[in-house]
Protein backbone atom coordinates (compact mmCIF):
# COMPACT_ATOMS: atom_id res chain seq x y z
CA UNK A 1 0.00 0.00 0.00
CA UNK A 2 1.17 3.49 -0.81
CA UNK A 3 0.20 7.05 -0.12
CA UNK A 4 1.03 8.94 -3.31
CA UNK A 5 -0.15 12.41 -2.43
CA UNK A 6 -1.52 14.38 0.49
CA UNK A 7 -3.24 17.73 0.71
CA UNK A 8 -3.50 19.23 4.19
CA UNK A 9 -5.51 22.35 5.02
CA UNK A 10 -5.68 24.08 8.43
CA UNK A 11 -4.40 21.07 10.32
CA UNK A 12 -2.43 21.96 13.48
CA UNK A 13 0.24 24.41 12.23
CA UNK A 14 -0.11 23.32 8.58
CA UNK A 15 -2.01 26.01 6.68
CA UNK A 16 -1.94 24.57 3.19
CA UNK A 17 0.43 21.80 2.26
CA UNK A 18 0.48 19.63 -0.83
CA UNK A 19 3.04 16.85 -1.05
CA UNK A 20 3.88 14.13 -3.55
CA UNK A 21 5.43 11.10 -1.92
CA UNK A 22 8.06 8.56 -2.84
CA UNK A 23 6.88 4.93 -2.87
CA UNK A 24 9.54 3.86 -0.39
CA UNK A 25 11.06 6.47 1.95
CA UNK A 26 9.95 10.01 2.76
CA UNK A 27 11.94 11.97 5.30
CA UNK A 28 10.86 15.18 7.03
CA UNK A 29 13.63 17.24 8.56
CA UNK A 30 13.55 20.42 10.58
CA UNK A 31 13.64 21.65 14.16
CA UNK A 32 11.16 20.62 16.80
CA UNK A 33 7.77 22.32 16.68
CA UNK A 34 7.95 23.08 12.95
CA UNK A 35 5.23 20.61 11.96
CA UNK A 36 7.01 17.37 11.03
CA UNK A 37 5.03 15.24 13.46
CA UNK A 38 1.81 16.92 12.34
CA UNK A 39 2.35 15.59 8.82
CA UNK A 40 2.66 12.06 10.23
CA UNK A 41 -0.46 12.61 12.31
CA UNK A 42 -2.36 13.81 9.22
CA UNK A 43 -1.44 10.50 7.55
CA UNK A 44 -2.61 8.70 10.68
CA UNK A 45 -5.95 10.53 10.31
CA UNK A 46 -6.36 9.34 6.73
CA UNK A 47 -5.77 5.73 7.82
CA UNK A 48 -7.49 5.56 11.22
CA UNK A 49 -9.85 8.60 11.13
CA UNK A 50 -8.17 10.03 14.23
CA UNK A 51 -5.03 11.43 15.76
CA UNK A 52 -2.34 9.09 17.03
CA UNK A 53 -2.04 11.30 20.08
CA UNK A 54 -5.63 10.89 21.32
CA UNK A 55 -6.22 14.60 21.18
CA UNK A 56 -9.75 15.86 20.70
CA UNK A 57 -10.31 16.46 16.97
CA UNK A 58 -11.17 20.12 17.45
CA UNK A 59 -7.77 20.89 18.97
CA UNK A 60 -6.15 19.94 15.67
CA UNK A 61 -7.76 22.82 13.78
CA UNK A 62 -5.28 25.59 12.96
CA UNK A 63 -5.74 28.45 15.41
CA UNK A 64 -8.28 30.99 14.15
CA UNK A 65 -9.74 28.71 11.45
CA UNK A 66 -13.05 26.85 11.65
CA UNK A 67 -12.23 23.56 9.96
CA UNK A 68 -9.48 21.23 8.87
CA UNK A 69 -9.38 19.02 5.80
CA UNK A 70 -6.97 16.27 4.82
CA UNK A 71 -7.14 14.42 1.53
CA UNK A 72 -4.92 11.65 0.24
CA UNK A 73 -4.44 9.40 -2.79
CA UNK A 74 -3.64 5.81 -1.89
CA UNK A 75 -2.76 2.88 -4.09
CA UNK A 76 -3.79 -0.39 -2.49
CA UNK A 77 -3.32 -3.68 -4.34
CA UNK A 78 -2.92 -1.61 -7.53
CA UNK A 79 -6.31 0.05 -7.02
CA UNK A 80 -6.47 3.83 -6.60
CA UNK A 81 -8.34 5.29 -3.62
CA UNK A 82 -9.13 8.86 -2.67
CA UNK A 83 -9.76 9.60 1.01
CA UNK A 84 -11.00 12.94 2.37
CA UNK A 85 -11.46 13.68 6.04
CA UNK A 86 -13.07 16.92 7.17
CA UNK A 87 -13.68 18.42 10.56
CA UNK A 88 -15.70 21.59 11.01
CA UNK A 89 -15.21 23.09 14.49
CA UNK A 90 -18.97 23.22 14.81
CA UNK A 91 -20.25 19.96 13.48
CA UNK A 92 -19.44 16.37 12.74
CA UNK A 93 -16.29 14.85 11.39
CA UNK A 94 -16.91 13.32 8.00
CA UNK A 95 -15.01 10.87 5.87
CA UNK A 96 -15.27 10.35 2.15
CA UNK A 97 -13.87 7.32 0.33
CA UNK A 98 -13.79 7.57 -3.47
CA UNK A 99 -16.45 10.26 -3.48
CA UNK A 100 -18.83 8.39 -1.18
CA UNK A 101 -19.58 9.56 2.37
CA UNK A 102 -18.96 6.89 4.97
CA UNK A 103 -21.83 6.57 7.42
CA UNK A 104 -19.75 5.24 10.27
CA UNK A 105 -16.07 6.00 10.87
CA UNK A 106 -15.45 2.47 12.13
CA UNK A 107 -16.07 1.08 8.63
CA UNK A 108 -12.87 2.79 7.49
CA UNK A 109 -10.60 1.14 10.06
CA UNK A 110 -8.39 -1.56 8.58
CA UNK A 111 -8.73 -0.45 4.97
CA UNK A 112 -5.43 1.45 5.04
CA UNK A 113 -3.35 -0.15 7.80
CA UNK A 114 -0.75 1.96 9.56
CA UNK A 115 1.71 1.69 12.43
CA UNK A 116 3.14 4.80 14.05
CA UNK A 117 6.15 4.73 16.30
CA UNK A 118 6.54 7.88 18.36
CA UNK A 119 8.63 8.83 21.42
CA UNK A 120 5.43 9.04 23.42
CA UNK A 121 5.11 5.25 23.16
CA UNK A 122 7.96 4.83 25.64
CA UNK A 123 5.96 6.62 28.28
CA UNK A 124 2.72 4.93 27.32
CA UNK A 125 4.08 1.45 27.74
CA UNK A 126 5.21 2.23 31.28
CA UNK A 127 2.35 4.47 32.28
CA UNK A 128 -0.71 2.31 32.78
CA UNK A 129 -2.41 -0.90 31.78
CA UNK A 130 -5.05 1.23 29.99
CA UNK A 131 -2.35 2.66 27.69
CA UNK A 132 -0.92 -0.81 27.06
CA UNK A 133 -4.37 -2.13 26.14
CA UNK A 134 -4.79 0.80 23.76
CA UNK A 135 -1.59 -0.14 21.92
CA UNK A 136 -2.95 -3.68 21.44
CA UNK A 137 -6.45 -2.55 20.49
CA UNK A 138 -5.08 -0.24 17.81
CA UNK A 139 -3.54 -3.19 15.95
CA UNK A 140 -6.32 -5.73 16.49
CA UNK A 141 -8.94 -3.25 15.31
CA UNK A 142 -7.13 -2.93 12.01
CA UNK A 143 -7.01 -6.67 11.50
CA UNK A 144 -10.53 -7.49 12.54
CA UNK A 145 -13.35 -4.96 12.42
CA UNK A 146 -15.56 -7.31 14.47
CA UNK A 147 -13.04 -6.94 17.29
CA UNK A 148 -13.43 -3.17 17.29
CA UNK A 149 -17.23 -3.42 17.22
CA UNK A 150 -17.22 -5.89 20.13
CA UNK A 151 -14.89 -3.64 22.07
CA UNK A 152 -17.06 -0.57 21.47
CA UNK A 153 -20.18 -2.46 22.57
CA UNK A 154 -18.40 -3.83 25.63
CA UNK A 155 -17.20 -0.36 26.64
CA UNK A 156 -20.68 1.09 26.23
CA UNK A 157 -22.16 -1.58 28.49
CA UNK A 158 -19.36 -1.12 31.01
CA UNK A 159 -19.97 2.62 31.08
CA UNK A 160 -23.67 2.04 31.80
CA UNK A 161 -22.89 -0.55 34.45
CA UNK A 162 -20.49 1.86 36.17
CA UNK A 163 -23.04 4.67 35.97
CA UNK A 164 -25.60 2.43 37.68
CA UNK A 165 -23.05 1.58 40.39
CA UNK A 166 -22.16 5.27 40.86
CA UNK A 167 -25.81 6.10 41.57
CA UNK A 168 -25.42 4.17 44.82
CA UNK A 169 -28.85 2.53 44.51
CA UNK A 170 -29.07 -1.07 45.65
CA UNK A 171 -32.67 -2.21 45.22
CA UNK A 172 -33.54 -5.62 43.80
CA UNK A 173 -34.25 -4.17 40.36
CA UNK A 174 -30.89 -2.39 40.29
CA UNK A 175 -29.12 -5.64 41.17
CA UNK A 176 -31.09 -7.39 38.44
CA UNK A 177 -29.97 -4.74 35.95
CA UNK A 178 -26.32 -5.14 36.98
CA UNK A 179 -26.68 -8.86 36.31
CA UNK A 180 -28.21 -8.08 32.93
CA UNK A 181 -25.13 -6.00 32.06
CA UNK A 182 -22.88 -8.92 33.09
CA UNK A 183 -24.80 -11.36 30.92
CA UNK A 184 -24.68 -9.01 27.95
CA UNK A 185 -20.97 -8.33 28.46
CA UNK A 186 -20.01 -11.99 28.79
CA UNK A 187 -19.99 -13.05 25.11
CA UNK A 188 -18.24 -9.81 24.11
CA UNK A 189 -15.62 -10.23 26.85
CA UNK A 190 -14.99 -13.81 25.73
CA UNK A 191 -14.45 -12.79 22.09
CA UNK A 192 -12.12 -9.97 23.06
CA UNK A 193 -10.17 -12.21 25.44
CA UNK A 194 -9.69 -14.92 22.81
CA UNK A 195 -8.54 -12.43 20.20
CA UNK A 196 -6.11 -10.68 22.53
CA UNK A 197 -4.73 -13.98 23.74
CA UNK A 198 -4.18 -15.27 20.23
CA UNK A 199 -2.68 -11.94 19.18
CA UNK A 200 -0.11 -11.91 22.00
CA UNK A 201 0.80 -15.55 21.36
CA UNK A 202 1.46 -14.78 17.70
CA UNK A 203 3.24 -11.51 18.42
CA UNK A 204 5.52 -12.93 21.12
CA UNK A 205 8.06 -14.81 18.96
CA UNK A 206 8.29 -11.87 16.53
CA UNK A 207 8.80 -9.48 19.42
CA UNK A 208 11.47 -11.65 21.06
CA UNK A 209 13.36 -11.99 17.79
CA UNK A 210 13.22 -8.25 17.05
CA UNK A 211 14.25 -7.26 20.55
CA UNK A 212 17.40 -9.34 20.46
CA UNK A 213 18.26 -7.83 17.05
CA UNK A 214 17.68 -4.27 18.20
CA UNK A 215 19.22 -4.46 21.66
CA UNK A 216 22.25 -6.33 20.30
CA UNK A 217 23.18 -7.44 23.81
CA UNK A 218 22.11 -11.03 24.34
CA UNK A 219 19.34 -9.92 26.65
CA UNK A 220 16.10 -11.83 26.48
CA UNK A 221 12.83 -9.87 26.40
CA UNK A 222 9.47 -11.47 27.12
CA UNK A 223 5.85 -10.43 27.09
CA UNK A 224 2.93 -12.02 28.87
CA UNK A 225 -0.81 -11.43 28.64
CA UNK A 226 -2.86 -11.31 31.83
CA UNK A 227 -6.63 -11.52 31.97
CA UNK A 228 -9.21 -12.49 34.56
CA UNK A 229 -10.88 -14.44 31.80
CA UNK A 230 -8.08 -16.93 31.41
CA UNK A 231 -9.39 -19.03 34.29
CA UNK A 232 -12.86 -19.61 35.71
CA UNK A 233 -16.32 -18.49 34.69
CA UNK A 234 -16.99 -14.85 33.91
CA UNK A 235 -20.55 -14.73 35.23
CA UNK A 236 -19.62 -16.54 38.46
CA UNK A 237 -16.86 -14.00 39.07
CA UNK A 238 -19.27 -11.12 38.42
CA UNK A 239 -21.80 -12.56 40.87
CA UNK A 240 -19.11 -13.05 43.49
CA UNK A 241 -17.91 -9.46 43.09
CA UNK A 242 -21.34 -7.83 42.89
CA UNK A 243 -21.46 -6.65 46.51
CA UNK A 244 -17.87 -5.44 46.30
CA UNK A 245 -18.61 -3.56 43.06
CA UNK A 246 -21.59 -1.88 44.68
CA UNK A 247 -19.46 -0.79 47.63
CA UNK A 248 -16.58 0.46 45.44
CA UNK A 249 -18.96 1.85 42.79
CA UNK A 250 -16.98 0.43 39.90
CA UNK A 251 -16.79 -2.82 37.95
CA UNK A 252 -13.97 -5.08 39.07
CA UNK A 253 -14.43 -7.95 36.61
CA UNK A 254 -13.78 -7.99 32.90
CA UNK A 255 -11.39 -7.48 30.03
CA UNK A 256 -11.00 -3.82 30.99
CA UNK A 257 -8.63 -5.19 33.65
CA UNK A 258 -6.41 -7.02 31.14
CA UNK A 259 -2.73 -6.21 30.99
CA UNK A 260 0.50 -7.08 29.23
CA UNK A 261 3.69 -7.42 31.24
CA UNK A 262 7.10 -6.96 29.69
CA UNK A 263 10.31 -8.33 31.13
CA UNK A 264 13.98 -8.16 30.18
CA UNK A 265 16.00 -11.07 31.51
CA UNK A 266 12.99 -11.86 33.69
CA UNK A 267 12.93 -8.47 35.39
CA UNK A 268 9.86 -6.28 35.09
CA UNK A 269 10.68 -3.22 32.98
CA UNK A 270 8.86 -0.79 35.22
CA UNK A 271 11.43 -1.40 37.95
CA UNK A 272 14.74 -1.07 36.32
CA UNK A 273 14.84 -0.67 32.57
CA UNK A 274 17.25 1.97 31.27
CA UNK A 275 16.18 4.50 28.62
CA UNK A 276 18.07 2.52 26.00
CA UNK A 277 16.42 -0.75 26.96
CA UNK A 278 13.01 0.85 27.02
CA UNK A 279 13.52 2.39 23.61
CA UNK A 280 14.62 -0.95 22.16
CA UNK A 281 11.66 -2.69 23.76
CA UNK A 282 9.13 -0.24 22.38
CA UNK A 283 10.69 -0.40 18.92
CA UNK A 284 10.60 -4.19 19.01
CA UNK A 285 6.99 -4.20 20.19
CA UNK A 286 5.87 -1.71 17.54
CA UNK A 287 7.82 -3.32 14.71
CA UNK A 288 6.37 -6.68 15.74
CA UNK A 289 2.94 -5.11 15.33
CA UNK A 290 3.92 -4.01 11.85
CA UNK A 291 5.08 -7.53 10.94
CA UNK A 292 1.85 -8.93 12.40
CA UNK A 293 -0.37 -6.48 10.50
CA UNK A 294 1.46 -7.23 7.28
CA UNK A 295 0.93 -10.95 7.87
CA UNK A 296 -2.77 -10.59 8.70
CA UNK A 297 -3.92 -8.06 6.13
CA UNK A 298 -3.56 -8.36 2.39
CA UNK A 299 -1.39 -5.28 2.08
CA UNK A 300 1.79 -3.79 3.55
CA UNK A 301 0.95 -1.15 6.15
CA UNK A 302 2.40 2.33 5.97
CA UNK A 303 4.88 2.98 8.75
CA UNK A 304 5.28 6.35 10.48
CA UNK A 305 8.52 6.81 12.41
CA UNK A 306 8.56 9.92 14.54
CA UNK A 307 11.94 10.91 15.86
CA UNK A 308 13.10 7.30 16.35
CA UNK A 309 16.80 8.08 15.88
CA UNK A 310 16.80 10.58 18.72
CA UNK A 311 19.59 9.96 21.24
CA UNK A 312 21.00 7.02 19.25
CA UNK A 313 24.65 6.99 18.20
CA UNK A 314 25.58 6.57 14.52
CA UNK A 315 26.22 2.85 14.80
CA UNK A 316 22.86 2.21 16.37
CA UNK A 317 21.09 4.29 13.74
CA UNK A 318 22.80 2.35 10.97
CA UNK A 319 21.95 -0.88 12.67
CA UNK A 320 18.32 0.09 13.15
CA UNK A 321 17.92 1.19 9.53
CA UNK A 322 19.39 -2.10 8.36
CA UNK A 323 16.92 -3.97 10.49
CA UNK A 324 14.00 -1.89 9.22
CA UNK A 325 14.82 -2.84 5.68
CA UNK A 326 15.33 -6.48 6.49
CA UNK A 327 11.74 -6.52 7.69
CA UNK A 328 10.72 -5.33 4.22
CA UNK A 329 8.87 -2.25 5.19
CA UNK A 330 6.68 -0.84 2.49
CA UNK A 331 6.33 2.90 2.47
CA UNK A 332 8.08 4.75 5.29
CA UNK A 333 7.54 8.26 6.60
CA UNK A 334 10.22 9.38 8.99
CA UNK A 335 11.03 12.58 10.86
CA UNK A 336 14.37 13.73 12.23
CA UNK A 337 15.74 16.95 13.67
CA UNK A 338 19.21 16.04 12.39
CA UNK A 339 19.17 16.66 8.65
CA UNK A 340 22.72 15.42 8.07
CA UNK A 341 22.15 12.19 9.97
CA UNK A 342 19.11 11.10 8.04
CA UNK A 343 20.44 12.04 4.60
CA UNK A 344 23.71 10.25 5.16
CA UNK A 345 22.02 7.19 6.56
CA UNK A 346 19.82 6.63 3.55
CA UNK A 347 22.45 7.63 1.02
CA UNK A 348 24.85 5.14 2.58
CA UNK A 349 22.51 2.22 2.03
CA UNK A 350 21.85 3.44 -1.48
CA UNK A 351 18.22 4.05 -0.96
CA UNK A 352 16.07 6.27 -3.09
CA UNK A 353 13.97 8.66 -1.10
CA UNK A 354 12.30 12.04 -1.00
CA UNK A 355 13.07 14.52 1.69
CA UNK A 356 11.31 17.66 2.80
CA UNK A 357 12.66 20.41 4.99
CA UNK A 358 9.88 21.82 7.15
CA UNK A 359 9.82 25.26 8.74
CA UNK A 360 6.84 26.93 10.37
CA UNK A 361 4.36 24.53 8.82
CA UNK A 362 5.60 24.85 5.24
CA UNK A 363 8.12 23.05 3.06
CA UNK A 364 11.13 25.28 2.44
CA UNK A 365 13.20 22.69 0.57
CA UNK A 366 12.40 19.51 -1.36
CA UNK A 367 15.07 16.94 -2.23
CA UNK A 368 17.74 19.60 -2.02
CA UNK A 369 15.99 22.22 -4.15
CA UNK A 370 14.28 25.33 -2.80
CA UNK A 371 10.50 25.05 -2.77
Amino acid sequence: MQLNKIHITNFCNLKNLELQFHPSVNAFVGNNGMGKTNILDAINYLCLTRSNFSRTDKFNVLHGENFFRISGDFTRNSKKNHVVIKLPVEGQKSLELNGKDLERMVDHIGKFPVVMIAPKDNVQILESSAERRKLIDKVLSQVNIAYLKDLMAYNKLLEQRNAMLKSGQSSGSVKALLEVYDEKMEPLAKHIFLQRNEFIEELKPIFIRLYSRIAHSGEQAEMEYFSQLSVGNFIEKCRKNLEKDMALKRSSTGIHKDDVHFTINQNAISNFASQGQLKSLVLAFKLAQFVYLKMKTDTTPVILLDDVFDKLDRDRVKHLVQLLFEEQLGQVFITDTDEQRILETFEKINFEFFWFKIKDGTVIQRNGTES
Partner: protein
Amino acid sequence: MNISSKIVEDAVKSFSSLPGVGRKTALRLVLHLLNDKYDLADEMSLGLSKLKEVRFCKQCHNISDNDVCEICTSQARNRQTVCVVESIRDVIAIEETGYFSGLYHVLGGIISPLNGIGPENLNIRSLLERIERQGVEELIMAISPTIDGDTTIYYLTRMIPSHVKVSTIARGVAFGGELEYADEFTLGRSIASRVPYTVQNNQL
Protein backbone atom coordinates in the same frame (compact mmCIF):
# COMPACT_ATOMS: atom_id res chain seq x y z
CA MET B 1 -38.17 43.26 13.91
CA ASN B 2 -40.10 46.12 15.47
CA ILE B 3 -43.77 45.41 16.15
CA SER B 4 -46.12 48.25 16.99
CA SER B 5 -48.45 46.07 19.06
CA LYS B 6 -47.38 44.54 22.37
CA ILE B 7 -50.14 41.92 22.05
CA VAL B 8 -48.86 40.78 18.68
CA GLU B 9 -45.30 40.89 19.97
CA ASP B 10 -46.24 38.56 22.86
CA ALA B 11 -48.08 36.18 20.53
CA VAL B 12 -45.02 36.03 18.24
CA LYS B 13 -42.87 35.25 21.26
CA SER B 14 -45.17 32.39 22.29
CA PHE B 15 -45.25 30.86 18.81
CA SER B 16 -41.50 31.10 18.34
CA SER B 17 -40.91 29.22 21.59
CA LEU B 18 -42.31 26.10 19.87
CA PRO B 19 -39.78 23.62 18.51
CA GLY B 20 -38.94 24.24 14.85
CA VAL B 21 -40.62 27.64 14.70
CA GLY B 22 -38.43 30.67 14.10
CA ARG B 23 -39.41 34.30 14.66
CA LYS B 24 -40.23 34.89 11.01
CA THR B 25 -42.56 31.88 10.80
CA ALA B 26 -44.14 32.90 14.11
CA LEU B 27 -44.90 36.36 12.76
CA ARG B 28 -46.42 34.91 9.60
CA LEU B 29 -48.68 32.62 11.69
CA VAL B 30 -49.80 35.43 14.01
CA LEU B 31 -50.57 37.78 11.09
CA HIS B 32 -52.55 34.97 9.48
CA LEU B 33 -54.64 34.59 12.63
CA LEU B 34 -55.21 38.38 12.75
CA ASN B 35 -56.61 38.43 9.21
CA ASP B 36 -58.59 35.23 9.61
CA LYS B 37 -62.36 35.58 9.13
CA TYR B 38 -63.40 32.26 10.67
CA ASP B 39 -62.52 32.70 14.36
CA LEU B 40 -59.61 30.30 14.10
CA ALA B 41 -57.88 32.12 16.97
CA ASP B 42 -60.85 31.60 19.29
CA GLU B 43 -61.10 27.97 18.36
CA MET B 44 -57.40 27.50 18.97
CA SER B 45 -57.33 29.25 22.30
CA LEU B 46 -60.19 27.12 23.53
CA GLY B 47 -58.45 23.96 22.35
CA LEU B 48 -55.15 25.00 23.84
CA SER B 49 -56.60 25.76 27.25
CA LYS B 50 -58.17 22.31 27.25
CA LEU B 51 -54.77 20.66 26.74
CA LYS B 52 -54.29 20.89 30.49
CA GLU B 53 -56.99 18.27 30.89
CA VAL B 54 -55.06 15.64 28.96
CA ARG B 55 -53.72 12.93 31.28
CA PHE B 56 -51.88 9.70 31.04
CA CYS B 57 -53.72 6.40 30.86
CA LYS B 58 -53.48 4.57 34.20
CA GLN B 59 -53.02 1.31 32.42
CA CYS B 60 -50.71 1.92 29.46
CA HIS B 61 -49.38 5.47 30.15
CA ASN B 62 -50.49 6.69 26.73
CA ILE B 63 -52.14 10.11 26.44
CA SER B 64 -55.84 10.04 27.30
CA ASP B 65 -58.86 12.21 28.05
CA ASN B 66 -60.00 9.82 30.77
CA ASP B 67 -58.35 7.69 33.44
CA VAL B 68 -58.06 4.88 30.94
CA CYS B 69 -57.42 5.61 27.26
CA GLU B 70 -59.60 4.73 24.25
CA ILE B 71 -57.23 2.03 23.08
CA CYS B 72 -57.30 0.26 26.44
CA THR B 73 -61.10 0.45 26.72
CA SER B 74 -61.83 -0.64 23.15
CA GLN B 75 -63.65 -3.97 22.95
CA ALA B 76 -62.33 -4.57 19.45
CA ARG B 77 -58.71 -4.96 20.54
CA ASN B 78 -56.82 -8.08 21.47
CA ARG B 79 -56.02 -7.86 25.20
CA GLN B 80 -53.58 -10.76 25.26
CA THR B 81 -50.98 -9.02 23.12
CA VAL B 82 -49.18 -5.94 24.41
CA CYS B 83 -46.75 -3.89 22.38
CA VAL B 84 -44.06 -2.33 24.59
CA VAL B 85 -42.78 1.05 23.34
CA GLU B 86 -40.49 3.81 24.57
CA SER B 87 -42.74 6.81 24.01
CA ILE B 88 -46.20 8.08 23.10
CA ARG B 89 -44.91 9.01 19.67
CA ASP B 90 -44.19 5.34 19.01
CA VAL B 91 -47.83 4.47 19.84
CA ILE B 92 -49.03 7.03 17.34
CA ALA B 93 -46.61 5.80 14.67
CA ILE B 94 -47.69 2.16 15.07
CA GLU B 95 -51.39 3.11 15.16
CA GLU B 96 -50.93 4.95 11.87
CA THR B 97 -49.80 1.72 10.20
CA GLY B 98 -53.13 0.06 11.07
CA TYR B 99 -51.35 -3.29 11.40
CA PHE B 100 -51.60 -3.76 15.15
CA SER B 101 -54.78 -4.55 17.06
CA GLY B 102 -53.42 -5.34 20.53
CA LEU B 103 -52.77 -2.96 23.43
CA TYR B 104 -49.72 -0.85 24.27
CA HIS B 105 -47.47 -0.17 27.20
CA VAL B 106 -45.44 3.06 27.20
CA LEU B 107 -42.21 2.66 29.19
CA GLY B 108 -41.34 6.35 29.15
CA GLY B 109 -37.80 5.79 27.86
CA ILE B 110 -35.13 3.09 27.85
CA ILE B 111 -32.71 2.03 30.55
CA SER B 112 -29.64 4.26 30.53
CA PRO B 113 -27.98 4.87 33.90
CA LEU B 114 -25.64 7.38 32.20
CA ASN B 115 -28.72 9.53 31.59
CA GLY B 116 -30.01 8.86 35.08
CA ILE B 117 -32.60 6.31 33.93
CA GLY B 118 -32.58 3.07 35.90
CA PRO B 119 -35.30 0.38 35.89
CA GLU B 120 -37.20 2.21 38.63
CA ASN B 121 -37.57 5.37 36.55
CA LEU B 122 -39.58 3.56 33.87
CA ASN B 123 -43.12 2.13 33.84
CA ILE B 124 -41.88 -1.40 34.42
CA ARG B 125 -43.63 -2.33 37.66
CA SER B 126 -47.02 -1.46 36.17
CA LEU B 127 -46.20 -3.66 33.17
CA LEU B 128 -45.48 -6.63 35.42
CA GLU B 129 -48.75 -6.05 37.30
CA ARG B 130 -50.65 -5.82 34.03
CA ILE B 131 -49.24 -9.09 32.79
CA GLU B 132 -50.68 -10.87 35.84
CA ARG B 133 -53.98 -9.04 36.07
CA GLN B 134 -54.78 -8.95 32.38
CA GLY B 135 -53.56 -12.38 31.37
CA VAL B 136 -51.12 -11.06 28.78
CA GLU B 137 -49.78 -13.86 26.59
CA GLU B 138 -47.41 -12.03 24.30
CA LEU B 139 -45.20 -8.95 24.53
CA ILE B 140 -43.98 -7.33 21.33
CA MET B 141 -40.91 -5.22 22.04
CA ALA B 142 -40.97 -2.27 19.66
CA ILE B 143 -37.82 -0.69 21.06
CA SER B 144 -34.87 1.03 19.35
CA PRO B 145 -32.25 -1.43 18.06
CA THR B 146 -29.43 0.12 20.11
CA ILE B 147 -27.27 -1.32 22.87
CA ASP B 148 -29.46 0.39 25.48
CA GLY B 149 -32.62 -0.73 23.72
CA ASP B 150 -31.38 -4.32 23.75
CA THR B 151 -30.47 -4.02 27.43
CA THR B 152 -34.02 -2.86 28.17
CA ILE B 153 -35.54 -5.79 26.25
CA TYR B 154 -33.18 -8.22 27.98
CA TYR B 155 -34.05 -6.80 31.40
CA LEU B 156 -37.81 -6.96 30.78
CA THR B 157 -37.56 -10.50 29.45
CA ARG B 158 -35.73 -11.53 32.60
CA MET B 159 -38.41 -9.99 34.85
CA ILE B 160 -41.57 -11.35 33.25
CA PRO B 161 -43.04 -14.83 33.88
CA SER B 162 -41.63 -17.44 31.52
CA HIS B 163 -45.00 -18.40 30.02
CA VAL B 164 -45.30 -14.99 28.34
CA LYS B 165 -44.09 -15.07 24.77
CA VAL B 166 -41.67 -12.27 23.88
CA SER B 167 -40.92 -11.09 20.38
CA THR B 168 -39.07 -8.10 18.97
CA ILE B 169 -40.10 -6.23 15.88
CA ALA B 170 -38.19 -7.40 12.81
CA ARG B 171 -35.35 -5.16 11.79
CA GLY B 172 -34.11 -5.43 8.32
CA VAL B 173 -34.19 -4.61 4.71
CA ALA B 174 -36.98 -2.26 3.71
CA PHE B 175 -39.81 -3.83 1.73
CA GLY B 176 -39.20 -3.20 -1.94
CA GLY B 177 -35.58 -2.33 -1.12
CA GLU B 178 -32.76 -3.88 -3.05
CA LEU B 179 -30.20 -5.85 -1.10
CA GLU B 180 -27.18 -4.20 -2.61
CA TYR B 181 -28.32 -0.85 -1.24
CA ALA B 182 -28.87 -2.07 2.33
CA ASP B 183 -25.99 -1.21 4.66
CA GLU B 184 -24.06 -4.21 5.89
CA PHE B 185 -25.25 -3.88 9.48
CA THR B 186 -28.92 -3.96 8.50
CA LEU B 187 -28.30 -6.78 6.08
CA GLY B 188 -26.35 -8.76 8.67
CA ARG B 189 -29.16 -8.37 11.19
CA SER B 190 -31.78 -9.34 8.63
CA ILE B 191 -29.93 -12.56 7.95
CA ALA B 192 -29.47 -13.31 11.64
CA SER B 193 -33.18 -12.74 12.33
CA ARG B 194 -34.49 -14.39 9.15
CA VAL B 195 -38.07 -15.73 9.13
CA PRO B 196 -39.35 -19.05 7.77
CA TYR B 197 -40.95 -18.65 4.36
CA THR B 198 -44.34 -20.14 3.60
CA VAL B 199 -46.85 -19.49 0.86
CA GLN B 200 -49.08 -17.66 3.37
CA ASN B 201 -46.16 -15.45 4.25
CA ASN B 202 -46.12 -14.26 0.71
CA GLN B 203 -49.22 -12.13 1.20
CA LEU B 204 -49.16 -8.83 2.98
